[in-house]
Each structure stands twice: as structure tokens, then as C-alpha cells.
């Protein structure tokens, strides 16, 4: 059984659709990458799942965590799930920590909520967590304020805070985007190591395919509020089926071979108020035909555990050329 099962999740803001029907499963312990460009709904999916969107957001569909429905669940249920079963870390670690509270207090708050630890026991556990995420001199740093940490260290603190609830799933929303490349690699390594140690599942939201390739087992590619392709990481990199995925891969530089111009996908993402009636990618797609404008294509199998929402999926690497 999947740990999280999302079915037909839609989100609208002021009548504009941000998510247009997402179905996605996360298995216990797996690392799933969620890629796509800004605004395609990667973060919104998980904020909606945890009930963290502003009240004006219209959410429909179903999000089940180990069978328990989260959409419309009572506040007490959501508070137990948030941080306790599903933890989340964010893009900008420095502003994600409360500037007026010591980091120790912010970690022990989560420990009190989800593990019932208080006082010296909570402090000892917070110290252990800071140690675990690689903050040197953890005992002293518990009393420091967020502004005394660098960006990379702040993200480590965020991760320690996320681990405090011993979650089954960590959703990392662009966790390295705001960081230097070297720090980026360290954080990804930390996430991979923690996953091995704790066996928690990881959803890594990123616009960077390279980051996902390094860390994840499986990838879901999102475009304009829908999942357009889902595949094991190797399959996606070797045999991308959806034309949008080829485009994303074609825009990656290669380490070997002759230097070439990076391919850009022509055109832009359609605005939410001007969505085409058919496939949202059709206006930019080299394989478009009349059928593509009829209705959004349903995902179908193009290989083992590999599905693409395209009427004309590619089956050969030739498309990359």
C-alpha cells in the first residue's frame, strides 16, 4: 500500500486553476522527485495535501495518508500529521526559521508536539538532532538565533526540526535552490544519508533535473498543473516519453562530447486563464496533431512503471537529437 495516495487533486485560486487533477502515489521509504518549472504546481500539491494553503484556495480531490483522508480533516488530525508523519522543509531556509526564537526552542517545540519531550530530555534530543544533521558544536548552537547561521546551516536546522517528529515522509520543497553549489551537494548528501538511516520517504521538489537524478528513485514531471510523465529515474533519463520531458532533458548541458547549444523549448507556459482545451503542452509541441487539441490526454503506460500523458509518446532516444 502506498504511504500517500493523491487522487484527482485540484486547487484553484480566485477561480484560476493551479492544479488541474493530480494523482500520485508515494511508497513507504521511496524517494520521489517532482520536477517542472516554477508555477507548475509542484509545491502547491504538497501545501494542499497538508492543508497549508490560504483559506481562499479551493481544493478538491483526495489525499490519503496510510488510508486516512487528509483533505477536510479536523485541525487536530492535521496538526498531528504535520511534522509528525509528513514534515516539510522549504526553499529559503533563512526566512523559514523564526528570527526571534532560539533554534533550540524551535526544535524542542516540534519534539514537545510529536514526541512529548520536555525540558532537559527535549534539549538533549535537540542536541542529538543538530549533531545528526552536521551542525558542529551542537550543544552551544542550540542557544543561537537563526541569523547566526549561514544559509546551508539554516537548512540543516530545518532538517533537524523536520526529523524531530520522526516523520514517515519528508517533503523537501526546492531545499537547495537558495544555496551555493557546494552547499547544495552537501545538503543533498545529508538528505540521502538520513533517508538510509531513518527509512523515511522523501519527496524532492525541484526544477533541477540534475538534483533529482542524484537523489531519487522515481520522478514525476509536472506541467501546467498536471503530471505529464512518471517513471523510474533511469527510464526517464534514457527514454523520456513526453515531449516536454525531452525538452527538459535537451536543456541540460552534457559533461562529455562536443559543446552544443542548449536546446530551449519554444514558447511559454500557457497562462491559467488561457489554458488550451486539450493538452496544455500542445502549443509548444513538435508532435502536435488535431487530436491533441480535443481533450487533455490521460496518462498511459509506455514501459514498466513508466506512464506519460501524451497521445504521441516517444519510444526512442532519437527524439533527443
Amino acid at each position, binding site marked *: 500500500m502506498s504511504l500517500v495516495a493523491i487522487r484527482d487533486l485540484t486547487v484553484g485560486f480566485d477561480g484560476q486553476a493551479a492544479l488541474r487533477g493530480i494523482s500520485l502515489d508515494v511508497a513507504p521509504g521511496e524517494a520521489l522527485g517532482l520536477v517542472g518549472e516554477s508555477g507548475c504546481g509542484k509545491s502547491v500539491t504538497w501545501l494542499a495535501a497538508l492543508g497549508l494553503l490560504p483559506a481562499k484556495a479551493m481544493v478538491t480531490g483526495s489525499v490519503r495518508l496510510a488510508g486516512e483522508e487528509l483533505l477536510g480533516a479536523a485541525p487536530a488530525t492535521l496538526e498531528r500529521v504535520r511534522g509528525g508523519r509528513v514534515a516539510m522543509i522549504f526553499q529559503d531556509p533563512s526566512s523559514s526559521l*523564526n528570527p526571534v526564537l532560539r533554534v533550540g526552542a524551535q526544535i524542542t517545540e516540534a519534539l514537545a508536539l510529536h514526541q512529548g519531550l520536555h525540558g532537559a530530555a527535549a534539549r538533549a534530543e535537540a542536541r542529538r538532532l543538530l549533531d545528526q544533521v552536521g551542525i558542529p558544536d551542537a550543544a552551544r548552537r542550540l542557544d543561537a538565533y537563526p541569523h547566526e547561521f549561514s544559509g546551508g546551516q539554516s537548512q540543516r536546522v530545518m532538517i533537524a526540526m523536520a526529523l524531530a517528529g520522526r516523520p514517515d515522509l519528508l517533503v523537501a520543497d526546492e531545499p537547495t535552490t537558495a544555496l551555493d553549489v557546494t552547499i547544495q551537494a552537501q545538503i543533498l548528501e545529508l538528505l540521502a544519508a538520513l533517508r538510509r538511516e531513518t527509512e523515511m520517504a522523501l519527496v524532492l521538489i525541484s526544477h533541477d533535473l540534475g538534483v533529482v537524478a542524484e537523489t531519487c528513485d522515481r520522478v514525476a514531471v509536472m506541467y501546467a498543473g498536471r503530471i505529464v510523465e512518471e517513471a523510474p529515474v533511469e527510464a526517464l533519463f534514457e527514454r523520456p516519453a513526453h515531449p516536454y520531458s525531452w525538452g527538459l532533458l535537451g536543456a541540460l548541458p552534457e559533461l562529455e562530447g562536443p559543446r552544443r547549444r542548449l536546446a530551449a523549448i519554444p514558447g511559454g507556459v500557457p497562462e491559467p486563464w488561457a489554458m488550451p482545451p486539450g493538452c496544455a503542452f500542445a502549443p509548444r509541441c513538435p508532435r502536435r496533431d488535431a487530436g491533441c487539441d480535443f481533450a487533455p490526454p490521460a496518462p498511459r503506460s509506455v514501459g514498466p512503471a513508466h506512464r506519460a500523458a501524451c497521445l504521441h509518446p516517444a519510444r526512442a532516444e532519437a527524439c533527443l537529437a
Partner: protein
Amino acid sequence: MLRFFTIRLLRAAVTLTMVVTFAFLVLIASGDPADIIMGSDAPPEAIEAFRQAWGLDRPIWVQYLSYFSAILSGDLGRSMRDGRDAIVLVAERIPATLALTLPALALKLALGIPAGIYAALHRNSMADRAVMVLAVAGFTIPSFVLGLLLVLVFAVQLGWLPSGGQESWRHAILPVITLGIGGAAVLARFTRSAMLEVLGQPYIRTASAKGVAWRAVVSHHALPNAAIPTVTIIGFMVGSLLAGAVVVESVFSWPGVGRLLVTAVANRDLAVVQCILLLVAATMITANLVVDLLYGLLDPRLRSGKEG
């Protein structure tokens, strides 16, 4: 810390000097105290004698210097009107003014802050709009208009409360409300925007994502951050405890510092005016200093900035 205080004290001294100089120039330039106090039909010899007695016949810069050196030695001068020490005249009036401004401050805080927090938490609701409309009305109506309006309704029409004077606590009700409403309105708007700013910050989302209940997110994560900008405006209100009631005291014939100031200005009673201005400036400066210290207490980022 010592450096911080030294700089603040020097700055305070400069401010006070400027206040004294400015008031001196304006009062001297705008009319001769001898004419005003003795009356224009007084015999010329009497006026001349008065001018000599108070040193008004000397060149202006000599008057200024002698006045200034007197202040430095702690002598704030005597009233030209009845010859009493200016400081005593002013000190007598302070309790009356505080009897209005302290309850008014409490009213501002008790109304303004909860209203602002409530409006921010229920943004765009009917309650939010109602609070904001009232707030705009509250601080756009000048206090003398509001004061007269309240007198008209509660003293003249309904006859529930006295319209002026200082005989009992009931006399203080209307002036306190008049003073309090404008400040409460300002504070409500300020608190609301500070809260909205904070509620939009990523760390609020982090707290929710960690499983903290919304009430605790507000009280534990949002309020301490929103307090930082709000303290500025409260400090300003504390700073105007002595001088903030000039108009209202006049409307309600309340014998406080404000009314003394109005009379003293009309009489060109230099020493009294200067004494009040110095006192007001000193309260403002002290309030600002306290606000700065509070910032350090509320915001760890500023604290380490000062130490480092």
C-alpha cells in the same frame, strides 16, 4: 553599550538645544512680552521698567546666552506673569495632564492592539472592514471636533456627563475618550499591518507545517515578531504623555500642562514655554531611548548588532 548611551546622550543634548533655541527665536520674534503682559495702554515708563527688570532691553543674543547659561546651571527661570518659578508652575500641572493621558494610553492599547490583531487574523472579512473603516474615521477626525461632538451628545443632549472642568472622575471620561480614540485607531491600523506582514512570512508556514496549532502559531510565532514595529508607535504615544493633550485640555477646560502652554504662549511668558518644551522634549527623548532598548530585547538580530 557605553558607546551607545554616550552617542544617545549627545544626540539628546543637541535636540534639546535646538528646541530651546527655536522656541526662543519664535517667541521673541512674534511679540514683546512687555507689551503683552503690561497691556498696550500702560505708561511707557512702566513698560521700560518691566523690560529692564526682565533684561528685555539687552541685545537678543545676550538674552539668549544668559538664558542658556541659566538653563545649564539648572535655573529654568521665572514666569514673567506672576514671578513664580517656571518649573514649579509646570510641575503643578503635570498630575492633571497625566490623569487624562495615562488612562487614554491604556484605552489606546486596550482597544487598538486587539482590534488590529483581530482584523489581521480575519483579513477581508466584514469585521476587518468594519475595524478599518472605524480606524480611518477615528484618526481622521481632529480631536477638537471629536471632543465637541462628544460634548454635544453626552453633555448637552443626553446630560450624562459634564462638558468641562476637573471636579470629579466623571469630568475625565469625555476627554479620555477623545484622546484615546485617535490613538487606538492609529494603533489598530499599525498592529494590523504589522501582523499581516508577519503572517505572510515563511517562518509562519514553517510553524504550521511543524504541527503547531494555529492559536499557538499566532501567539508564539506571529505576535513576538509583530510587536517589534508596534513598539515604535507605542513609544511615540508614551513620549507624548505630557504634551499630547494640549487641544483636548483646551476643549474641556482641563487645567493641565497643555492649557498652561497655550496661556504662556499667548502671554509670551518665555520661561514657562521653554520649561514645558524642555520637559516635553526630554520625555520624547527618554521614550525613544526606551524604545531602542526594547528593540534589542525583542529582536535578537539588533541585539548582537549592538554588541558586535
